[in-house]
Every structure is written in structure tokens, then in C-alpha cells.
């Protein structure tokens, strides 16, 4: 991890020179993932913390999430160029969070279609101005409106795309991690790219609906997948076993918050008491847990 940190720092000091290719791992035939570190987006990592990558077909490439800053997007593009001579035809944004969409501009060119959940553009509109304002202050990157690139193609429920001998099924989910989550299923290798619907090691972050998220997980748990790519954490090969910690965390919040509401207790108390049995099981617990309880409490008091 220290090396990666150093690598990033060195990389950003040299970003006026040639772009260095992002490190990627081929998890199964034609599916390449760059694994992010479990860190809070900050001025040192410039927001480059998520898993991002691409899938290569016989005729073209689909990028899945573009990174936490424009430079990471260019580094991903370089990695694609070093892997295959096929052109990029699609950029799929799995949801609105900065660590997944800030590299979009690296792929903005003729022949590339951007795809997102039907609510992604609205989420970009509601958050965009704030995100741009904070990018400099929190991530030490310069961001402008042109960097927030909305989808050309919106997924209402399902969308099939063909990369040449390789069909991907895109699914727009009801509100879960966010209100604009999109997953990508590769039929050829039975791989599901879940992005931030699945957190491994890194505490799950609720920015949509706790109940909605659990509903989606319960549904997805019944399927069999060979490989599952989380938004944060290593690739999963034992589905649904590796899903259980996340489910358990979300369920704990659900049960304990409902109990507090039944007792007529308030949000401030819930923030300080709910879910702390989970503390030692997760990375970045202190950074995200209180926020999760806040969001979940505000949702559950309308049950």
C-alpha cells in the first residue's frame, strides 16, 4: 500500500509528462480490474480509491467506471491501449460517486457512448456544482463542468450491449447504495460487476436506501456467479459467501434503528450507539459509520 501511495504521488508529480498506465489485473478472460486502496478520498490519493476497469470483446471495449480524477481516467485509457488494440465503444458509469466518474473526460471522443442509470443525470445535476466546488478543497484536483459527463444512453431496467462475441447485460437497480446504481453482467464468464452494491473490507456506504439495498442483495444472493467485482475490495469467487459481512452490517443497522424508533429515541443517540458491534470488522468504519446511521435513521422513521 505504501508503494502504491508513493506511486500515485510520483505519478501526479509527473502528470505533465507521458501518462503512466494504470495497473490492472485480468481476473478472468478479458475482464480487467484496477483495485483501489481502502482510503478516504483525499488530497494525497486525489480521489483514486475505487475499483475500476474494462471488459474486452472481439470488436470493442467497455470501460466500467473511469476513476477518481481525470488523470486516473487517462491512466486507465493507457492501460487499455497497452492491453488491446480494440477501440473503446462504451463507458459505463455504475453510479454518481466521484471516485467512479471523475475520469470520464479521458474517454470523451467520437464513437464512445456513455451509459448510466436513468437517474444518473439527475444525480449529476443535483451534486455536480457541489462536487466541483469540493474537488479542489478535498482532493486537490481541478474540476470543471466539462468533467461531469452525463450518459448518452440511459438504462431504465435492462440494456444489452454487444462488444463482439461478448454480450453484457446492464441492470438499473431500484434505490440501494445510491438512487442510480447500475450493475454489469458478462454472460461469457458468468461475472457480475457489482461496483458499490458490494463492499468487501471497506465499510459499506449508504447514500440511497438501507431497505432498498438489502432487498437487492437478497435478490442477487439467489443467483450463481463465478466472479463478482465489488466497488471496493478484492474480487469475489465464493459468491454469495463474501456478501454476508455486508448483509450482516446493513441488517444490524436495520434492526437496531427500528428498535430505537420503537422506543421513541432520537437520531443523535442512534448515531452514538447503533451498530458499534461491527466496528472491528471493517476498514474506514470511523469515517463512514455515523453517516450511515444518519441516512438510515432518516429513512426508517418514515416506515
Amino acid at each position, binding site marked *: 500500500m505504501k508503494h502504491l501511495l508513493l506511486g500515485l504521488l510520483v505519478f501526479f508529480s509527473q502528470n505533465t509528462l507521458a501518462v503512466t498506465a494504470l495497473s490492472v489485473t485480468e481476473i478472468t478472460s478479458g475482464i480487467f480490474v484496477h483495485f483501489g486502496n481502502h482510503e478516504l478520498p483525499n488530497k494525497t490519493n486525489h480521489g483514486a480509491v475505487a475499483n475500476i476497469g474494462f471488459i474486452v470483446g472481439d470488436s470493442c471495449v467497455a470501460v466500467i467506471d473511469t476513476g477518481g480524477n481525470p488523470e486516473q481516467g487517462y491512466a486507465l485509457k493507457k492501460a487499455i491501449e497497452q492491453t488491446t488494440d480494440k477501440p473503446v465503444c462504451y463507458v459505463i458509469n455504475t453510479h454518481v460517486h466521484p471516485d467512479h466518474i471523475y475520469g470520464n473526460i479521458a474517454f470523451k471522443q467520437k464513437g464512445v457512448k456513455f451509459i448510466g442509470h436513468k437517474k444518473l443525470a439527475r444525480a449529476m445535476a443535483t451534486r455536480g456544482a*457541489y462536487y466541483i466546488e469540493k474537488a479542489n478543497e478535498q482532493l486537490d484536483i481541478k474540476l470543471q463542468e466539462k468533467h461531469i459527463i452525463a450518459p448518452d444512453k440511459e438504462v431504465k431496467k435492462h440494456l444489452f450491449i454487444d462488444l463482439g462475441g461478448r454480450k453484457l447485460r446492464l441492470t438499473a437497480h431500484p434505490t440501494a447504495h445510491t438512487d442510480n446504481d447500475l450493475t454489469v453482467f458478462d454472460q461469457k464468464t458468468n461475472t457480475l460487476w457489482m461496483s458499490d452494491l458490494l463492499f468487501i473490507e471497506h465499510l459499506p*456506504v449508504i447514500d440511497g436506501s438501507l431497505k432498498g439495498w438489502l432487498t437487492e442483495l437478497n435478490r442477487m444472493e439467489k443467483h450463481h456467479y463465478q466472479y463478482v467485482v465489488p466497488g471496493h475490495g478484492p474480487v469475489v469467487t465464493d459468491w454469495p459467501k463474501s456478501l454476508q459481512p455486508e448483509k450482516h452490517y446493513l441488517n444490524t443497522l436495520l434492526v437496531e434503528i427500528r428498535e430505537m424508533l420503537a422506543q421513541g429515541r432520537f*437520531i443523535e443517540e442512534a448515531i452514538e450507539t447503533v451498530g458499534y458491534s461491527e466496528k472491528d470488522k471493517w476498514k474506514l468504519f470511523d469515517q463512514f459509520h455515523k453517516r450511515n446511521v444518519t441516512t438510515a435513521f432518516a429513512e426508517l*422513521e418514515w416506515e
Partner: protein
Amino acid sequence: MAATETIQYYKLIARIKLMNNKIKLSLILMLLVPLVSFAAKDESKWNNSLKNQYFSGVSIQESNDVIEIEAPYRAEDPALVPIKIISKIKQTQQNYIKKITVFVDQNPFPLVGEFGLTPETGKANLAMRVRVNSYSYIRAVAEMSDGKFYMSKKFVKASGGCSAPIGADLDAAMKRLGKVKFKVGKDMQLGEPVATQLLISHPNITGMQMDQVTRFIKKSHFVNQLKVTFNDKVVLTAKIDIAISADPNFRFYFIPNKRGTLKAEFTDMSCESPISRAVCVKGKEYSSEYQVSP
């Protein structure tokens, strides 16, 4: 950090790459310190504009003896920061807190709201949920029935990461729009001030300005006036704005001196600009009742 400093800094980091791991780690930790920015506790917005705009010619005493504001050290979720105002005095006909005005200095529209209170309130405690955009003072100014003013303030650090100061699920709030819940304290006793919670389902949209990029245009849409009565006597009035979180949620007190009806009446409105209230259109009127039997 100036640009040249930054380049030197990164050169240094590159050099450290050649050293052994232990030394590397400690050096990096040392080097990272200057990267952490400590936002100054800036009061210029209050001193230079807000104070004159809202309290022109008024002398305000800074003190936690009349009211004290409580807020978390860090705004974990910038869309929903629970704050409390604790009253240190009894609301009597002779001496009471008439109005509490709340600000988040560094928000695009700093006024959170003006809350009118009466002796019927019993106890001038308030709790609400606010949006906090960046490192900011949150302050509450109490206006007394005798015309004196007292102010309490608290500095709140902004959160980082993927958070944004809007609601998590707009459509869910929109579907429930106008729905109201009252929750009266289970310890209610005849004639004693009782803690009461009012929940209003409303997305309280701050307004969206990214239409060039996303072709998406949406004006602000928020609850702007609220009145709570008990048996037609005013308990609480509020003139509020977009700094109130989605699904506005207030806690206050009233005195249940007999059986009766708690009633919440509120209106919403829509404005052209998120930072100006010059061009606005009135929205709907809402009303909800709740029977109380102490």
C-alpha cells in the same frame, strides 16, 4: 502550497522512494502533515454581512447562559446534521425567548430559519436537521421578550468523500410529499412541557444548476413557513429555508394543559436562484392535526 513548493515536495517524495521502508513511512507521515489543511474558524461572513443584514443596530451578547447550541464536531452527513438549541431559562409570561434565529455561516444561503416561540411553548428547546456545505460556524441568536439578544455558536467541520448536502432518495421523499407525523413524548404529564417531534415529508430541494451538462433543470422547492398550534394557541412559528434537510424534522416543547389538538400548518415555495429570495413562487398549503390526551 505554492506550485514550486509542490514540485519540490514531490521530487522529495520521489527520492524517498529509494530509501528503506521504515524510514520511508515515518518520512511520508511527516511530509503528509502540511497537506492537511486546517480551515480557519472564519467569522467574517457573520461580522461583515449577516449581523447587519439580520440584526442591524442591535447589540448581541455572546453567551451560553440563555441558549446553548449543540452540534456534532464533524458534519458526518452534510445533508443531515442534527443540531439542538438548549434553553437555560423558563418560558413565562413575564420573561421568555421570543425568537431564535439560526445560521450556518458558510452555506450558500446562510439563514436556516427564524423560530418564533411563546410562553405556551413551555421550554424554548429546539432540535432540527440542517445542511452544512463546508467548515462553518453554526449560530443561534435568541431575542428575549425584554428586547435583549444573546448568541451561542459552534464550529462544525465538514465531511469529505462522496457526500453531498442533498437528500439520499429524492423520489421517496417526493412520493410522501406533505405527509406529516407528530410524536409526543411518552412521558407526557398534564400541565408539564413535553418534548414533541414534528416530521414533515418534503424533499426540500435546494435547486439544481447543472442543466448545461445534464440537460436537467430544477428550481428550489422547500418548506418556507410553518406554524404549530395547540388548541389554536401558537406554540411555534418558523420561517425556514433550504438549509433545512430533506424531510424537515423539528423537536420543540408545548404544555398539554388539557386534551386537545396539535396542528401543523405549513407552506412551500419555489425560487429561481438558490442564493436569492427575490424571485419566488408560492407553492401549496398543508395542514395536519394530532389529538393529544394527557
